[in-house]
């Protein structure tokens, strides 16, 4: 059978004129239109005479199955829902390939493209949606295709037969299915997605990240946060240019950015139309003789883009047509996506709002992420990745609003476990495990082995970890081990962990996290949270800045800093004040300045009405009271005079204080001022676990207070004394002498090595003083002084990292980067509003 033939008209053979039944005319031969007729026929097969107009030259087929057709898993014949025999057997007239172009509600007729006009008693509009085409230059070039009907699939298949590069714009459900199909057809596919995470409307960040990683492993290139500027090409498409200038070559571009209800006919006919054609609970439009169903309608303010709600609509529509009104109440939707064996499920609202709580389960080894959102003992949303077997169970509980308080503890483990009755107490379940049951999958440790380790003296989690390696790798069995500890030791087990966890979101300590980031090559915050079993969806204000720093330190030049994981000062590149304004401290290298800089600062103070300017304890000037909106302009003025950010706000290098030194001072032994400037040039811009201060004094009188700095240099006749771990803050600590070196070069190299060791090994928010007290001066000496090769490597790593971080953040902001950080979104003058963009 050839369904691709052009216009085909199937008539019932009846003499329509003699038929006295009411005439029901359907516009749209798609999923909803035909399902509505099926529902009607099931109720009453004789009441109406039916004519269906279809814009496509095909019988009714399953649109969802276009994805398997594209992927080569199904043929068109296999996805037909109702073939010609169905129309014939049910006495339905199909007018395929002849779209309706007008509705005349006064005359009660519809007119098709061919001119054919048909009268109706009842009209059903089921015109579905149109793909949304983003209005960029080149959108009409040959080779730019949407993904909606069989015609599009044919076009994609023809393009794929030639091979080459394809770009799919849109990383939602449809776009990913298109990308998958084209990949299977042998094309090299790039997905361009505007949002930071794939399928952001259905998935949260964690699941979106997992999906992205898996698709990349399948050979697709996924660009998130990428905005299409233009589709380029002369006679046909040749590539896509992004707003950041990148050009991606493509012989085929698939636009899958969204759909718009197809309401053109309805609007022209004067029906009430909002986002979709407005219908009541019985799918009746503003005209009692005109009904509408499917993606083209708006019910109770909602429009839908999945089939499940359409089925529910079709039922109440048919009930209404046979005057047995039941009424449609709106739908809660769930999404299940399966791309090449990747299971994804989401349902309901996972932005729970007030009182909502997340229950999260992550199993890195099996690539599983589950999140159930519970509110008032009811499930309100769920996101599942990797194992979606319980999706329908959660969805059912959600729709029925079941009280889950009884099974709450076990809910996340799924239906089998939670409804299992006897297993309700997790501790009892662990006790019931056999001796050879595997507790730690990573290190292959059995229950018997763990208990034996505990009995022979390992009475804490840490001791068990070092004793038999259980829970020492990925940590997912930590809870099991803790339960074994408490089962074995009874009341003796205090339960407290000796390692302080990074925060409440994880059972790992700082050092474990740092080690695993490097060992497992983790490269993003969601990845760390997934692999290390974070118990919250996106962490907290304690762990996010720490993870951001650890990743930045581990992968210089590669890791993309996450602004939203930084404290306000580091995000705004200024210090927030108690009244919400900011203070601005430009860098003054080694405490030196000149008339040009001073003039620029004076000008800024006057121009922006800064209420105060003050000399800081760090040898530079601080301008107070700048509004966040004015910061970029202030920075532009300071930049113009050659000044850059002083990072007075950062967990980073702050100041290098100097004294006068040999150039002027009668006691000076070395050029302390010049050395300070050179050290500041080397170290500025670096991110650290905490702030870091340096000073260089020209003689042991130590006017630069070098012995209370993180790194201090005291110059002497024979060279340079290097001091470390000083702190002048809350708890004063004088430095320890690290060593003495002969040359300025050495002083700088040792400084870089020391900083890098601190960067790589200290815990976030641990300054050098407490760090050295913890690890011991001897350890630091063994790494920086005694191990020459190690020191050189540390220095080299620091310099590599610096090559990526010495960009003035002020200059970038002044040039417009992250403009949104400084501007208002809009402004509201009661009774009038101006949006900023």
């Amino acid at each position, binding site marked *: 059978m050839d369904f691709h033939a052009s216009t085909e008209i199937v008539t019932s053979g009846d003499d329509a004129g003699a038929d006295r039944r009411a005439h029901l005319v359907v516009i749209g031969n798609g999923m909803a239109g035909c399902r509505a007729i099926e529902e009607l026929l099931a109720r009453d097969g004789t009441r109406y005479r039916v004519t269906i107009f279809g814009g496509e030259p095909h019988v009714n087929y399953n649109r969802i199955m276009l994805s398997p057709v594209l992927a080569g898993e199904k043929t068109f014949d296999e996805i037909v829902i109702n073939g010609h025999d169905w129309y014939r057997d049910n006495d339905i007239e199909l007018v395929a390939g002849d779209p309706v172009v007008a509705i005349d509600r006064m005359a009660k007729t519809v007119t098709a493209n061919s001119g054919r006009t048909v009268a109706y008693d009842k009209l059903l509009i089921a015109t579905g949606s149109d793909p949304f085409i983003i209005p960029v230059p080149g959108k009409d070039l040959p080779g730019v295709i949407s993904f909606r009907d069989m015609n599009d699939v044919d076009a994609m298949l023809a393009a794929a037969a030639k091979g080459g590069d394809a770009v799919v714009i849109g990383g939602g459900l449809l776009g990913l299915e298109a990308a998958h199909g084209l990949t299977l057809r042998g094309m090299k596919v790039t997905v361009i997605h*505007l949002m*930071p*995470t794939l399928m*952001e*409307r259905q998935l*949260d*960040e964690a699941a979106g990240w997992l999906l992205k990683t898996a698709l990349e492993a399948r050979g697709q290139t996924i660009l998130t946060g990428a905005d299409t500027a233009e589709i380029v090409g002369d006679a046909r498409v040749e590539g896509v240019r992004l707003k950041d200038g990148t050009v991606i070559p493509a012989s085929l571009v698939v636009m899958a950015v969204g759909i718009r209800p197809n309401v053109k006919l309805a609007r022209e006919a004067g029906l009430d139309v909002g*986002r979709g054609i407005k219908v009541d609970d019985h799918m009746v439009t503003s005209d009692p003789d005109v009904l509408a169903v499917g993606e083209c309608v708006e019910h109770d303010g909602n429009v839908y883009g999945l089939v499940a709600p359409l089925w529910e609509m079709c039922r109440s529509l048919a009930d209404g047509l046979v005057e047995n009104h039941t009424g449609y109440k709106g739908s809660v939707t769930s999404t299940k996506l399966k791309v090449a064996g990747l299971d994804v499920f989401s349902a309901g609202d*996972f*932005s*729970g*709002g*007030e*009182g*909502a709580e*997340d229950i999260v389960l992550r199993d890195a080894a099996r690539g599983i992420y589950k999140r159930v959102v519970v509110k008032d003992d009811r499930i309100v949303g769920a996101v599942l990745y990797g194992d979606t077997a319980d999706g329908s169970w959660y969805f059912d509980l959600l729709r029925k609003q079941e009280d889950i308080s009884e099974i709450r503890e076990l809910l996340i483990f799924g239906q089998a476990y939670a409804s299992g009755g006897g297993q309700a107490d997790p501790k009892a379940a662990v006790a019931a495990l056999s001796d050879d049951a595997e507790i730690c999958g990573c290190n292959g440790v059995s229950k018997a082995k763990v208990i034996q380790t505990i009995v022979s003296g390992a009475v804490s989690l840490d001791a068990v970890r070092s004793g038999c390696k259980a829970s020492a790798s990925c940590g997912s069995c930590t809870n099991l081990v803790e339960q074994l500890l408490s089962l074995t030791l009874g009341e003796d087990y205090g339960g407290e962990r000796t390692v302080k966890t990074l925060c409440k979101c994880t059972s790992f300590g700082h050092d474990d996290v740092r080690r695993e980031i490097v060992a497992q090559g983790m490269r993003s915050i969601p990845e760390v949270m997934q692999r290390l079993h974070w118990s*919250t*969806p*996106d*962490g*907290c*204000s304690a762990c*996010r*800045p720490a993870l951001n720093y650890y990743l930045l330190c581990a992968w210089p030049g590669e890791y993309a800093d996450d*602004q*939203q*994981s*930084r*404290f*306000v000062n580091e*995000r*705004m590149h200024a210090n*927030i004040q*108690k*009244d*919400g304004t900011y203070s601005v401290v430009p860098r003054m290298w080694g405490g030196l300045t000149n008339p040009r800089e001073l003039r620029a600062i004076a000008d800024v103070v006057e121009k922006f009405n800064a209420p105060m300017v003050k000399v800081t304890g760090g040898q530079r000037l601080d301008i107070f009271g700048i509004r*966040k909106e004015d910061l970029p302009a202030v920075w532009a003025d300071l930049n113009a005079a050659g000044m850059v950010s002083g990072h007075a706000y950062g967990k980073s290098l702050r100041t290098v204080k100097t004294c006068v030194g040999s150039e002027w001072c009668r006691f000076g032994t070395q050029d302390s001022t010049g050395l300070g400037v050179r050290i500041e040039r080397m170290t500025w811009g670096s991110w650290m676990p905490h702030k870091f201060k340096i000073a260089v004094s020209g003689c042991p009188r130590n006017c630069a207070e070098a012995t209370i700095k993180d790194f201090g240099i005291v110059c002497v006749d024979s060279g340079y004394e290097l001091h470390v771990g000083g702190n002048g803050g809350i708890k004063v600590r004088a430095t320890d002498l690290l060593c003495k070196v002969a040359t300025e070069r050495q002083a700088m190299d040792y400084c870089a090595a020391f900083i890098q060791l601190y960067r790589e090994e200290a815990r976030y928010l641990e300054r050098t003083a407490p760090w050295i007290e913890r690890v011991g001066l001897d350890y630091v000496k063994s790494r920086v002084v005694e191990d020459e090769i190690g020191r050189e490597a540390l220095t080299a790593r620091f310099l590599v990292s610096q090559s990526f971080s010495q960009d003035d953040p002020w200059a970038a902001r002044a040039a417009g980067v992250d403009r*949104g950080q400084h*501007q*208002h*979104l*809009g*402004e*509201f*003058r*009661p*009774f009038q*509003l101006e*949006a*900023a*963009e």
Partner: protein
Amino acid sequence: MIGDWIDVGPLAAIPLRGARTVPVAGGEEIAIFRTGDDAVYALVNRCPHKQGPLSQGIVHGHAVACPLHNMRISLASGEAMGDDEGCVPTIPVRVDAGRVLLSRMGAIATALAA
């Protein structure tokens, strides 16, 4: 026609786990938050502790940590979480077709209160 909702701009202009501000002439500045899972909330941009600008805090889950002294505020209720006490007014907000819509009455109420 002036509706009950005021369009204050595109959702896309608010970073995920971030916030933007909307000043109200004669009233208090409003902070519009967007969480990691794309929920949107509007609160008066003033911490109940010492008036810290909440819009500049770190957003995590459905809470924000105040940038001044780290008090955590529930975005949905405006109430301080944990052991802290205090509450900041919330303003009804919704998203339609990618635009952020703020309740006109809610915004005016902040102006009247100021």
